[in-house]
């Protein structure tokens, strides 16, 4: 008889966009990056990326400019809080709809 | 009731080293072939200077009962001033033995129906070169002489092991002087 395998099940998951499910549907506030103020864009080099580092759902890319995956961005606002240049604003998802009217 | 267990109760004050002395005797007894050795200190809080007691049981067989001694075969009193506050002979078996550190001759101490052994450990320990007040090695010499249970040489080995970093040779000298100067009387 093969020895029993213990601890076959634990709560373990891969960190990455989508690990928390369809979290984009939770979003009330949408982060909008002001590219004129964003440090890597302004300096045109790989720098800062605090938004990428702090995003709890890994939905910000480490690119110039950083791109947010809105399918999974839940709108928590941590990127806006952490951006040292104040380049990210949280905009009410309902606002553009108001403007469309 | 088991009759193979020798029960020794140690009376001292918190900080005098009664537990260490009992532990040394426990070690020496074990080396001498007593496979069952259990030393049980007073459970709970201890305060420096307060009267405390420690139970030591020794037997050729394993000991299972860890409760404090109620009917000792002998009691060892590290400090004669305890006689005024503690009934050291409480429960002591008939013809039991009291080993006492006291300054007066043995005839001055009487415990009805008991043997008594006296040595002025406080003085002998200073003679051995120890600072005043260290008495727990000396009392072991008096215990050996009075009880005849454990050989003085084995006890001296155990003393030097226990005090390996704390003046081992002075402590063993104190035990030897006490052994040579223990007077036995009573009954």
């Amino acid at each position, binding site marked *: 008889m093969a020895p029993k395998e213990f*601890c076959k099940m634990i709560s373990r*998951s891969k960190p990455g966009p989508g690990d928390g499910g369809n979290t984009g549907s939770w979003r009330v506030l949408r982060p909008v990056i002001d590219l004129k103020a964003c440090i890597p864009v302004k300096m045109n080099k790989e720098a800062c990326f605090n938004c990428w580092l702090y995003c709890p759902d890994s939905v910000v890319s480490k690119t110039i400019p950083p791109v947010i995956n809105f399918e999974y961005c839940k709108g928590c606002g941590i990127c806006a809080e952490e951006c040292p240049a104040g380049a990210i604003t949280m905009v009410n998802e309902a606002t553009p709809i108001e403007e469309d009217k | 009731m088991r009759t193979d267990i020798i029960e020794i109760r140690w009376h001292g004050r918190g900080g005098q080293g009664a537990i260490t002395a009992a532990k040394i005797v426990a070690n020496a007894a074990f080396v001498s072939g007593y496979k069952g050795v259990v030393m049980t200190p007073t459970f709970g809080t201890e305060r420096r200077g307060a009267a405390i007691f420690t139970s030591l049981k020794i037997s050729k067989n394993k000991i299972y009962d*860890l409760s404090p001694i109620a009917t000792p075969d002998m009691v060892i009193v590290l400090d004669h001033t305890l006689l005024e506050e503690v009934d050291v002979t409480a429960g002591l078996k008939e013809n039991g033995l009291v080993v006492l550190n006291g300054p007066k001759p043995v005839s001055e101490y009487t415990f009805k129906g008991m043997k008594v052994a006296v040595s002025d450990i406080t003085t002998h320990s200073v003679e051995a070169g120890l600072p005043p007040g260290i008495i727990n090695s000396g009392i072991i010499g008096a215990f050996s002489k009075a009880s005849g249970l454990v050989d003085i040489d084995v006890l001296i080995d155990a003393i030097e092991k226990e005090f390996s970093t704390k003046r081992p040779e002075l402590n063993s000298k104190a035990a030897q002087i006490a052994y040579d100067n223990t007077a036995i009387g009573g009954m």
Partner: protein
Amino acid sequence: MHIIESGNVAAATGVKLSRAQVIAAYPITPQTPLTEKLSEFVEGGELDAQYIPVESEHSAMGVCIAASTAGTRAFTATSANGLLYMNEQLHWAVGARLPIVMCVANRGIGAPWTVWNDQQDTIAQRDVGWIQIYCNDHQQIIDSVIKAFRLAQSVSIPVMVCYDGYLLSHTYMPFDQPEQSKVDTFLPKFAPTHFLNPDDPANFNTVTLPDVRPGLDGKMAPGYIEIRHNLQEDLRASLDVYEEIDTAFAKDFGRGGNPFVEQYKCEDADFVAVCIGSLSYQLRDVIDIMRDNGVKIGVMGVQMYRPFPNQAIIAALDGKKCAIVFEKALSYGNQGALYADIKSALYNSKDKPLVHNYILGLGGREIKTRHLLDALNESCTAPETFGDSPRWIGLKL
């Protein structure tokens, strides 16, 4: 080599020989000398471990959880209210499947405040999911600590090694200290099944949904109930693993062979006294007196309480006239916890004995031979009339 030391030092020596790597503990009577000894070992370079002083038992277990999640062998120790203060973290440690080992010097629980021995502290933790091993003397303490580390890492479940406060923690008796090289062979280096690894980033124990769900790796991730079911299955299977470990230990060190229950004069006995911890040894002398009086009686100490060794209990008690369960704890509002567990196990036995329950020794009340004799005589004289309620020994009402 035999040494004469206290039970706490026996435990500390077992931890040293097991080469624990992270120790976090908060001192509490009667466990304190154990943690003091361990900090001495670390300070003196005898044990290569991080000793992390913490401000509470909750934090002590928190540090052990972190250290174990980082893949190190972690140890802590506590007593009584300190153990209760850890409670939330105890559940976490076992749910996270971390092989932490903890010693508990059993002590009564306040209020009212007490520092003396009973077993309410660990018995109250029986449903947490930790494995619980109980010791009867110093040799079992040092041996059980070493076995506990191997058991914990074999099944990825934390283990409590419990011994009576003061009665064992503060008494001195001889015990054999195993050689380091032999312990190193017996207890292989810790190879964790899961740990925080920067080369393989992972989330552990995040919110787990009621249902299963697909993970990012394409595999179906278990829900909460699957993970908990797996824990229960592994706990039950730990009985076999512990038996193997105990057998291996007996082969290497010449001691053991009673992983679940330790019996004394039970073979031909009509009556069997049952209890947990040092009381089972104290009862041996009482059993001898009863035997001298012509009563066929033995005593059995329960060594492993969780997982509960139902089969060993049935094997030991099936066909006896009466099992007399002495307990230093109870499930308040019902009866003795061990008593209830034993009755539950015996429900599946062919020839059920009567079962009696006595509560005694709470808060360090001295257990006198005379009391034990009276209780056993009472139980053996008219066993059928005892009833299902626990009787209390030594009460001065």
